[in-house]
């Protein structure tokens, strides 16, 4: 660039000659130069601003475009790393305590039709009815030839059926993948597992949702994709459950009962090892719920173990005895007045037989005297009895983790009077489910701590709230052992396993009030081995009736107790319990002297 001089000699000389001030020329030039510099600086600044603007524009454009792409693109599994491949199942499996599968998923297909694409709807309908005899041909024809654009034909079809439909060769018949819930063991543990059905359905997939049992209780866990590879582990033992179902079914048929239930529970952990309710169903093909007017207990869906709320009879007597001993009111040998009948207002309490005028507490339990127990209850009083039963969990639905358990709410007397206390002491006037009873007996069996019955595998003992002292529990166990060795439950004796338990026979209530004369609920609640119990077993038969020794017999000692004995004999070895031979009673030595 040529720099313009501030004082060009020619102009200075000319100005001097004309008598002007040459400094004016210099100032003029300086001003011009400054103007020029200012223009340049502005241009440069504008240029920089422009560059910066373009840069920002580009940056925003890139971000905007990226955001647009992200929001508009289809989600895709990242392929560059393999972390995504753990999501395997739509719904987690359910396994037993040893990891054997109780419920899993199975890939099948659904069948649907798009009538506008069908070539020969009439032949297709004919052939479909041949493959699926349960389809209604008239309806299919109507659907295929009518205005409908989309028709579901079958929700689940087997691979053979799929091939057969494929062979029809109609382009309007289409298949969609379906993941279905499979219970490989069929009827086994049906009431615990419940069942599953389809929720929202699309062509390419369908939601599988639990409809009952643990499937419904743990639906959120099972459906969580993060748990796809982590099965839900239950406390049930497949082998024990199968054996218990077989024995109980045989027992139910033998005793002519119309229903039966059994619960086997670990006394320390509260784990339910097996829970059976008969009649049962196949969860793969869950029957319809009963109509609203029918008696729900007739339906196979009815879970007697948790929903069957009945008065469980004399099995409750041991709670009365245990509480009285815990309060220090009586000891095992305290003599109780058992003269009958015991009158209270216009109500009279009677015994099954007359057992004499007085008996020690142990004998009251062994002989199952209503009068004796009622007298003990009078001493305990209403408040303390209600409090004790409350701590044993008898006044609330059990916390057993299947949805049906919430429906097993105990029926309490509307007004807990002294008479109620007396009848409740021998198991009448308070209705509970067998699961409540099992939890109560577990508290006696484990040395006095309440354990919550649970269907999930536990890692250790529960160490629940203490409801009675160790000594009381031990004394109560001694009584229960004597009930079996010399009392009403002699049929429950299993050599080597020292079964201790209590029978209970309660008349069934009529729906319109009052009690049936000839229909009972026979219950046998037991624990084994009685000196250091590991398991509690409750067996309940609904309306049993046998003829033995020329007499019709319904009492639990004749019906539920032998079934329980058979079950202990069958199950205890499976649980790894080794029989122990009890030392024979020492021959009484009589000291003589002459």
């Amino acid at each position, binding site marked *: 660039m040529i720099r313009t001089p501030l004082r060009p000699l020619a102009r200075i000389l000319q100005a001097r000659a004309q008598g002007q001030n040459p400094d004016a020329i210099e100032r003029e030039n300086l001003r011009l130069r400054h103007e020029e510099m200012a223009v340049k600086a502005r241009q440069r600044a504008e240029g920089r601003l422009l560059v910066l603007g373009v840069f920002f524009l580009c940056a925003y454009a890139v971000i905007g475009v990226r955001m647009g792409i992200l929001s508009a693109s289809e989600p895709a599994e990242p392929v560059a790393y393999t972390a995504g491949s753990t999501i395997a199942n739509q719904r987690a499996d359910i396994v037993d305590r040893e990891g054997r599968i109780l419920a899993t998923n*199975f*890939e099948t297909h659904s069948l649907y039709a798009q009538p506008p694409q069908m070539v020969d709807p009439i032949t297709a309908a004919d052939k479909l009815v041949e493959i699926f005899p349960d389809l209604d041909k008239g309806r299919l024809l109507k659907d295929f030839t009518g205005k409908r654009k989309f028709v579901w034909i079958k929700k689940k079809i087997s691979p053979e059926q799929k091939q057969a439909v494929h062979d029809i060769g109609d382009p309007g018949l289409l298949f969609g993948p379906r993941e279905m819930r*499979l219970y490989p063991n069929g009827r086994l543990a049906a009431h615990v597992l419940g069942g599953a059905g389809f929720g929202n359905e699309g062509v390419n997939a369908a939601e599988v949702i639990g409809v009952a049992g643990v499937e419904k209780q743990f639906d959120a866990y099972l459906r969580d994709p993060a748990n796809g590879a982590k099965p839900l582990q239950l406390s049930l033992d497949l082998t024990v459950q199968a054996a218990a179902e*077989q024995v109980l079914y045989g027992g139910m048929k033998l005793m002519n009962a119309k229903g039966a239930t059994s619960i086997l529970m670990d006394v320390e952990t509260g784990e339910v090892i097996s829970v059976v309710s008969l009649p049962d169903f196949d969860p793969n093909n869950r029957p319809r719920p009963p109509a609203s007017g029918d008696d729900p207990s007739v339906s196979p869906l009815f879970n007697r173990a948790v929903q069957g709320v009945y008065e469980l009879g004399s099995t409750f007597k041991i709670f009365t005895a245990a509480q009285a001993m815990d309060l220090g009111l009586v000891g095992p040998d305290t003599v109780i007045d058992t003269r009958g009948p015991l009158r209270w207002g216009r109500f009279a309490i009677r015994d099954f037989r007359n057992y004499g005028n007085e008996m020690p507490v142990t004998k009251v339990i062994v002989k199952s005297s209503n009068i004796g127990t009622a007298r003990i209850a009078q001493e305990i009083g209403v408040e303390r009895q209600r409090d004790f039963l409350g701590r044993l969990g008898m006044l609330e639905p059990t916390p057993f983790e299947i949805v049906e358990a919430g429906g097993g709410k105990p029926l309490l007397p509307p007004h807990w009077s002294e008479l109620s206390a007396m009848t409740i002491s021998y198991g009448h006037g308070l209705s509970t489910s067998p699961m409540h009873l099992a939890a109560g007996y577990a508290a006696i069996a484990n040395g006095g701590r309440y354990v919550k019955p649970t269907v999930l595998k536990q890692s250790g003992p529960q160490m629940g709230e203490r409801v009675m002292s160790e000594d009381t529990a031990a004394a109560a166990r001694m009584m229960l052992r004597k009930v079996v060795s010399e009392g009403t439950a002699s049929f429950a004796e299993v050599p080597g396993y020292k079964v201790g338990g209590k029978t209970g026979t309660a008349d069934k209530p009529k729906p319109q009030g009052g009690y049936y004369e000839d229909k009972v609920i026979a219950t046998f609640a037991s624990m084994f081995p009685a000196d250091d119990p590991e398991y509690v077993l409750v067996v309940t038969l609904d309306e049993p009736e046998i003829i033995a020794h020329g007499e019709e017999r319904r009492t639990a000692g004749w019906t539920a107790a032998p079934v329980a004995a058979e079950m202990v004999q069958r199950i205890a*070895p*499976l649980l790894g319990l080794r029989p122990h031979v009890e030392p024979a009673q020492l021959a009484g030595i009589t000291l003589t002297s002459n």
Partner: protein
Amino acid sequence: MKTLLYMVTALCVFGLAFWAYRENYTTRQVLKETRQLQREIGAARERLSVLKAEWAYLNRPSRLRELAELNYDRLGLLPLRPDQFGRVDEVAYPQPAALNFSNGLDVSTMTRESYP
């Protein structure tokens, strides 16, 4: 000097472009293989779950019970009974092999003097 620098730079650019081109294609190839492998893993998992379900179905207690009954003649399987528990000390140890005495010495008749 400058010309050399330009040429080296140009060669570098060529080289890098070629490397990037090759790298691009190998990456695509690897991604394709990964996708293929993941498909195979998925299929294998699906098959595994079917096999597990089938194994559970074949091992269901009712079927095993029926099989045990059908094959009772050959196998003689019965449910486990309490009296089948044994104790370790009930198991007989194998008899040790008898020692072979070829030149027996009767010690019972030895006197103290003859004792060496």
